[in-house]
């Protein structure tokens, strides 16, 4: 298997010049995701108004796959209602984690992540931002100051083990 299947041009471009790679001035929601095994960390910032994601951005550091996936995520989710975005993000996560899962609708540029699915060790890089996004939905920005303490899932370090009980028993559906 050739890792160039994973490093598609689209991903390399998003890594080189990520979209929405900054902190929001006045986010309404934010959350931090951390992979303790490799040090990747992404904070997702949201401005949700009228139940719609008006603005989304991310900050942090990570490998090319991690950053590119975060960048693609911001393009995809901005403008969606919070409920639609949540459903969409869950669909993408399921698709990334499970080769037998159904492909999300209108994959668009996300198709570039197809190759990552063949490298189970790297899937966690691609899912980090998406986990952080789901967590952000439940975290009004003001309460996010100590979010580092609850950032990892124990099995892979993605997302959170304490997302209001959504991932019970340390399972974050990361596939690990």
């Amino acid at each position: 298997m050739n890792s160039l299947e994973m490093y598609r041009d689209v991903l390399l471009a998003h890594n080189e010049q990520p979209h929405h790679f900054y902190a929001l001035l006045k986010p309404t929601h934010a959350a931090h995701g951390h992979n303790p095994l490799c040090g990747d960390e992404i904070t997702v910032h949201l401005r949700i108004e009228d139940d719609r994601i008006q603005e989304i951005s991310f900050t942090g550091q990570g490998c090319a796959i991690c950053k590119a996936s975060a960048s693609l995520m911001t393009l995809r989710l901005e403008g969606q209602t919070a409920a639609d975005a949540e459903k969409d993000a869950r669909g993408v996560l399921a698709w990334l984690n499970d080769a037998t899962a159904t492909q999300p609708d209108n994959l668009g540029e996300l198709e570039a992540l197809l190759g990552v699915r063949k490298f189970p060790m790297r899937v966690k890089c691609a899912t980090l931002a998406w986990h952080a996004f789901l967590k952000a939905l439940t975290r009004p920005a003001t309460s996010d100051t100590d979010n580092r303490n609850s950032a990892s899932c124990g099995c892979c370090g993605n997302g959170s083990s304490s997302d209001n009980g959504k991932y019970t028993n340390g399972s974050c559906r990361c596939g690990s």
Partner: protein
Amino acid sequence: MGRVAATAGNKGYLKRPLEVSSIRNDFPSLSHCNSNGQSIVWLDNSATTQKPRCVINALTDFYTNYNANVHRGYYEWGQRATEAYEGTRKRLADFIHADAAEEIIFTRGATEALNALAEIIGQRYFQPGDEVIVTELEHHSNQIPWQMQQTKRGIRIKGWRLEEDGRLDLSRLEELLTPKTKLLAFSHLSNVLGFIPPVKDIIRRAHTNGTLVVVDAAQALAHVAIDVKDLDCDFLVGSAHKAYGPTGAGFFYGKRKLLEILPPYHGGGTMMETVEIDRFTPAEVPFRFEAGTPPIADIIGFGVAIDYLRQFDWEALSKHEEDVVQYAENALSSLSYIHLAPCPTRRTAVVSFLVDGLHPHDIASLVCDENIALRAGFHCCQPLMKRLRYPNGLVRASFGLYNTREDVDRLVVALERAVEVFKK
């Protein structure tokens, strides 16, 4: 010093010449090729080494020809199994220059050895308010077991800070040692920097303070001649699988007089002398610390791995590894986009580095295409990464006796290709 002692101890044996091509033939896994016909370049020896055929055969031989529990059966297989198992204890004692085979306690690995030591030393010696010193060089397995004693016994961990150049400064140890310092735990060879601290000086200094010393030799065992008597360490741990042996087998060494006053670790068969319904008396050393059926085949394989290593002249072996590591250091540092992690002494077995603008994980993934196994990340050393400011960790190439200059050349080509991918 240690090196000379190790070879001197083996005088009289005719050593096998160190011919790398013939050594490589001993390791069946090294002949595997990818779909492009490229053979594996195994540069993750600090994580685990490949196994020579004799070790693999020893496992099969045990399960095929004399599979039996140890210290129990009166039938022939039980005797053979026990002899082979105890044979490893003798070989290991001889290998690290322990006074007696009884000073070697088998465990399931170096991690279990450190956990066992933390628990039994803690039980015997630690009082609330006592202090344990660990260095920032340490693998998590030489940190967390001691940290767990903090909550359990109210001791306090003091970190021996690493200098910017990766050095351990003895004057910092002076400042850390107090009458309450019960123990110092440190690594003989850093699995990230390839750095060997001044082991003897550190031990001597700790001992003048009445502080016990645990040496983590998990990384060192296959690369550095170890003489526990010369070092005068109180305890030392190692594992088989980083020294061409099977996984699931390791050991700790302890000075006999210390082992004799330490309590058992796990309870179960073998570790006791008499058992009544509500009490037991512990067995003698070493069995006191070896409850239950051990990984018999793996420990037998460990002994075979030690024999395998010892058939070579240790000096020739060290010289070969030094040559390849030095060659790697020169080759990598000649590339403008590569930054080597600091190492205050000559690098041993490990070269860690960063590639400009590229995340270590991306590097490790991309070189896979050339069938090169590198490691990227924190290498179980988060305090070290934090101190030396590597928030994304490092790329690590770690070497063994079968690695060659050609392996390094292939690594360089693969790195250049990886950098090209990102330049597009």
